[in-house]
């Protein structure tokens, strides 16, 4: 199967029903995308398909064929996406495990809605759990990054 991941063409020999998450992690070595629930309940596995946020743990890899897959490793070249910068400015992460998913969800939101309201941020990020409880800093960082654009 031919995939384009973070702009790079990749070829994998894999059952088309395998969730994209496990292809990214176990086959392509892109471990920034996390497994948290396997059922689209926590958002830790969020990646972009053609710029839209999807939960890769329930997305068969076949659905990614012919579409641009972007993972946290491809969000920016040097970790300097406005959201990544805002995340560091606000010292958002605690354990950090959910943050790749949070960032990918937030990046898809800002690509679609460059200046979201607080309510839009809340709605967009509702699928992403953070057990450490960094929600308020995430909210502030997204709004900050949006304003800084």
């Amino acid at each position, binding site marked *: 199967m031919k995939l384009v991941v973070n702009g790079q063409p990749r070829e994998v020999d894999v059952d088309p029903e395998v969730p994209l998450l496990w292809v990214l992690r176990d086959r392509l070595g892109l471990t920034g995308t996390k497994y948290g629930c396997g059922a689209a309940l926590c958002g830790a596995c969020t990646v972009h398909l053609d710029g839209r946020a999807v939960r890769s743990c329930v997305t068969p890899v076949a659905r990614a064929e012919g579409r641009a897959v972007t993972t946290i490793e491809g969000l920016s070249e040097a970790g300097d996406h406005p959201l990544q910068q805002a*995340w560091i400015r606000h010292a958002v992460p605690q354990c950090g495990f959910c943050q790749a998913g949070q960032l990918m969800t937030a990046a898809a939101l800002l690509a679609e809605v460059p200046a979201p309201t607080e309510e839009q941020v809340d709605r967009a990020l509702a699928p992403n759990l953070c057990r450490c409880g960094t929600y308020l800093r995430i909210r502030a960082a997204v709004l900050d990054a949006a304003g800084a654009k």
Partner: protein
Amino acid sequence: MTLDLSRRGFLLGLTAAGLVVSASSARAAADFAPNVWMRLAPDGTLHLTCNRSEMGQGIRSAIPALLAWELGADPGRVVVVQAPGDPAYGDQNTDGSRSIRTQYESLRRMAAVGRTVLERVGAAQLGVPAAEVSCRDHAVVHEASGRSVPFGALVDAAAAARLPDAARVALRPDPPASGWDLPLVDALDWVTGRAKYGADIVLEGMTTAVLVRPPVLGARVATLDDVDARAVPGVVDVVRMPDWSPPAAFQPLGGVAVVAEDTWTARRAAERLRVTWTDSPHDGASWAQDLAAMREAVARPGTPRRTVGDAEAALAGAARRIEATYVVPHLAHAALEPPVAVARRTPEGCEVWASTQTPQAARRVVAAQLGLDEAAVTVHVTFLGAAFGRKSKPDYVAEAALLADRVGRPVRVQWLREDAMQHGYYHASAVQRLEAGLDADGAVVAWRHRIASPTIGSTFDPDRHELRDSELGQGLADLPLDVPALAVETHPVQEHVRIGWMRSVYNINHAFAVQSFLDELAHARGVPLPDLVKALYGPPRPFGEAEAGGPISNYGAPLDAYPVDLARYHRVVDRVRALSDYDAAPAEGSAKGFAVHRSFLTYVAVVAEVTRGPRGEPRLQRAWVVADPGRSVHRDRVRAQLEGAVIFGASAALYGHLALVDGRFTADNLRDYRLLRMHEAPRSIEVEVIAEGDAPGGVGEPGVPPVAPAIANAWFALTGERVRELPMIDPLNGRREA
């Protein structure tokens, strides 16, 4: 002296280091390494060791900062090294909110050894007396002449010098009690996906295992048909795990492992196993039965644990009697990263990479399971995708080691979310009946608190069924009530699952019952709760065991160094009241609730503001937190822990619920174990930290206990409906439970 930990410098330091480099792996002979905590290279690069696990509390940013400060080092030239599990690093169990508390002095002592040597050899090079130099900005400086020599240039001389006695070395004057504004050394790795957690470790030839564990604790495999599982392409082996006998402790739970070339194959094949199980003594157990038994128990006298005067007589003679029973169910850690560990058998032993809070216990368990000397086992600590106490129980690490031994290839054991929900160590449920006797003037003249709650001791000794002193010591034995007659009584509880510590532990149960009951008393007497608390806890004084009428375990700390200090209670109460404008009339449709609790030697008062949500359910709108941890190191992480504690506490209050049916919990994913989400998070959390003391208290846990009662008390103020059983919201329909 200020500490300038430039963000850029520390970030660069970490990026160069990587997390799983062990402290001993790269020691060059030319370096100055007076102990395991520091290694100075001739180019000035300073490796500083973090001996505790990073699980969201920012310890990898705090410990090296403290060491660097004591050394007079430039944080920009520091590389943080994560220690593997080894007693050489002291106690590494990252648990009990004590990484700073118990190491504040000892870490500085270790750094001071290095600083003293650098001062001596630096002074010799400058030709001045050692007493006239100091370490600053990564150099030994002679202030009088303005001359200095950089640390790197002193490496050879320092490495050859005799080391001073760590116990007698002079420390610098204490750092500021309020700590410093420090960056996060791991921030860039966290936002780029580069940080390596347990599951991110990849070894040559590695396989992945998914296990099917006994559905009820104590059951064993009766029959196994693995034909279909083995037929799945990519399956390497199917392994029957060893059975175990009580106590559960940190033993693997048994069952059957499917080892495969990748995670998805292991999971799919595990679903194709056909396993039948032996009977377990816990087969018929249910929360409904246990709850009824615990309610029945607390109606009766129990084992006396605190006795002041004659509470029975004082209650009987009281002009007015108020009583209420409170229920907290079992709770799950639900860290977003399920347990995971990687192991490989080596010719001489075993090497492990694990998301663990306790690499030393993991090492012991692996050595025991494989019949190895501990010295033959290496445990590397990865980043933890949070932990909350679950990852200080290394059963999953032992699974990986056993399988690597059997399969002959490296094995990663990946717990699925369902495994984590079904086979955890659970926060203890509790049923608590509180009774107060009031005299004709409304003063409290009698207090009785009866509790039925399983002990964590049952996990380590199957004959233990009653709360231990260290468990009562979490907010009940040390509750400073200034009441002439008082009784605390416990009842044994038969447990059916592994009970383990979860963030804040028994404080969650005790604070919910006590702070809710105090609110009931305050309303009965028509006084504001903060006033009632201050009056009932009594005037500023150290509260000791004689007054308590029983032992105070005090988190293992001496009461003279860490007294139960009423002045500090009063201060956080007064401060949160002012900060939250608690006494002002609430906005239409909202109300505030208050609670205060001391745990892990830190005092925290919380005010919660709630409204009704769209389904009539409680919504936390705003929160105010005032904490007095005595001292802090990393100012922003203290605030972050307190912010996170509000969310953690609110999840427990609003949704936390596990129901046992037929010996197993019904929840198996985050659909039915709900956690607060972004749109349910409060609009604001205002945190004030009072750090003006001598001795540091805990930070990671103390913020949680007051949150649930503050929310419940706010709900009563809003609706007149008293919450006596958690959670407040039915996790399945999102409504307030009747």
